[in-house]
């Protein structure tokens, strides 16, 4: 998936501009970034600095105004929406600040969602879902609905959903932002384990310096400009 020199994420001169009431608001300005396979990178910065926007561009759910975003060997700007959706399903595992679980589906069904986009048999899907839930320590909660879980448990289900299809890259947007200190520490430990034991590349947006400390690399964004 990565290039010959092991680069998984390759951004060159990436700009992103939003328009509010016809007023141009530059969010990202000339971002250049290379992330290698197996790295754990933290993106920090104040609110409105463009962290989440950068994460969204890398995850293929937003497009740059200018510049090249190449992830897992694909230049995302060249992909049609349907191929981009399939690319996300194959390569990206999402972890959101507010977990984004589907409330009417059980933990098991939430984790199974990404596998429904694969050709796996239901037996193979079951095996993988139970493995992922076991990895986050929630095998006993498979039949619970999100409302029956604590915030920490919900985020662990979300992590199980993110890893179940064995994606190339995990993107986490403020994964501990809605958790107390104890649960936040558990989630960060889990992410660290996924990075070290399963060799997952992790890209985490956070404004919490303690969370960022778990990463190999910390980048700062300030007014749309990346500073290492």
């Amino acid at each position, binding site marked *: 998936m990565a290039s010959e020199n092991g680069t998984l994420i390759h951004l060159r001169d990436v700009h992103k501009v939003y328009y509010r009431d016809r007023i141009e608001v530059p969010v990202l300005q000339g971002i250049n970034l290379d992330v290698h396979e197996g790295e754990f990178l933290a993106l920090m910065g104040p609110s409105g600095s463009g962290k989440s926007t950068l994460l969204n561009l890398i995850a293929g*759910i937003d497009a740059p105004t200018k510049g090249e975003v190449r992830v897992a060997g694909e230049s995302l700007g060249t992909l049609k*929406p349907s191929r981009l959706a399939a690319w996300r*399903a194959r390569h990206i595992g*999402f972890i959101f600040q507010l977990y*984004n679980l589907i409330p009417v589906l059980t933990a098991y069904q939430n984790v199974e969602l990404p596998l*429904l*986009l694969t050709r796996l048999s239901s037996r193979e899907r079951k095996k993988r879902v139970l493995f992922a839930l076991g990895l986050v320590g929630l095998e006993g909660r498979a039949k619970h609905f999100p409302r029956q879980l604590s915030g920490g448990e919900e985020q662990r289900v979300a992590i199980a959903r993110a890893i179940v299809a064995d994606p190339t890259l995990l993107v986490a947007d403020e994964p501990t932002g809605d958790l107390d200190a104890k649960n936040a520490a558990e989630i960060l430990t889990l992410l660290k384990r996924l990075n070290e034991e399963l060799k997952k590349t992790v890209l985490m947006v956070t404004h919490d310096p303690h969370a960022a400390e778990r990463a190999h690399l910390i980048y700062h964004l300030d007014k749309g400009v990346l500073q290492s």
Partner: protein
Amino acid sequence: MAIPLAYNLRNLSARKVSTVLTALGIGLVSWVFIFTLALAGGFQSALQATGSPTNAIVIRNGSTAELTSIVARDAAASIESQPEIARAPDGTPLATHELVVLWNLKRKNGTPANVVVRGVTAKSVALRPKIHLVEGRMFRPGLEEVVVGKLAQARIAHCALGDRIKLAGRQWSIVGVFDAQGTAFDSEIWGDVELFMPVFDRPVYQSVTLRLDEPSHFGALRKRLEADPRMSVQVKHEDEFYAAQSATLAALLRGLGLFVTLVMALGAIFGALNTMYAAVGSRTKEIGTLLALGFSRGSILTSFLIESVLLATLGGLLGSLMTLPVNGITTSTMNFASFSEIAFRFQVTPSMLLSGMIFAAVMGALGGFFPSRKAARRVIVEALREA
């Protein structure tokens, strides 16, 4: 693979109030739709079943109904002597000449109704094997006695066994009640044709009905009779004759019913539209999440459409269940072909229920399309930002 159906089913169950209200709205429209079909179907079925494919009916050329027909006595005698007519066990032709008049009587609720009073012969019942007496006995020729159809007895005043009814200034005893198995004859009053002719001051018959000895002989019989310039008659298969009588009113009933249904359906579609827009609005973040995970926009569109169709089908099911109690209920209407009252039973068939369900599903698909398209077109990043 698509978004699991459990997602849609549980969402419907999670929004109980809006689900039930929308389903009821669609169910009501579906009920009207099936009700209309059952009404028209019951009417048509009653008339279609009245005729037999093995019988032929002879009426005056140019007439579309017995009421406007005349068949002279000598012509009737000539028709009944044709060689294609089947024979009764006693060797006589299996044919009958009948007189039909409309008589204004009071329904049990006091409102007036035009009732068919038919003068018949002893062969009339033999030609209609569906008819059998359920109470009393057959009238005796030459006496002021009549028998009444089961539905006429149920709806017309003074038609119970033993009652006396006034027709053409005379009192007639009701001596029997016959069951014609839901056909138009069930709404009629029968008496002796030879007695009726002077009483009703009618010197001619209205029709001759006969049983063919071979169905294939119909063509030859028709050709000969219709070519005879002395008679000026037309020969028809009895079942086709009655079916044609039902066509105009059945089409009108269906047309009116469908118009009312379509107007109501517009309301129901807007109900589904509203419900689905609310569903899409409240699940924007879920839509964003599903899109981010890699589900295609087509999957999202299909999923919400399925949800809308499921909701509408639930309504269709409710409508179908609500229609079942009307099945078999007797009502009556004026038959435009004969200007007479015809009683018939609502007939709810499995195909009508299926049509109602399909109609409901189509309403759901129409009402759900635009909200589903809106869901599928959400910008992922904006959808994920929704609270």
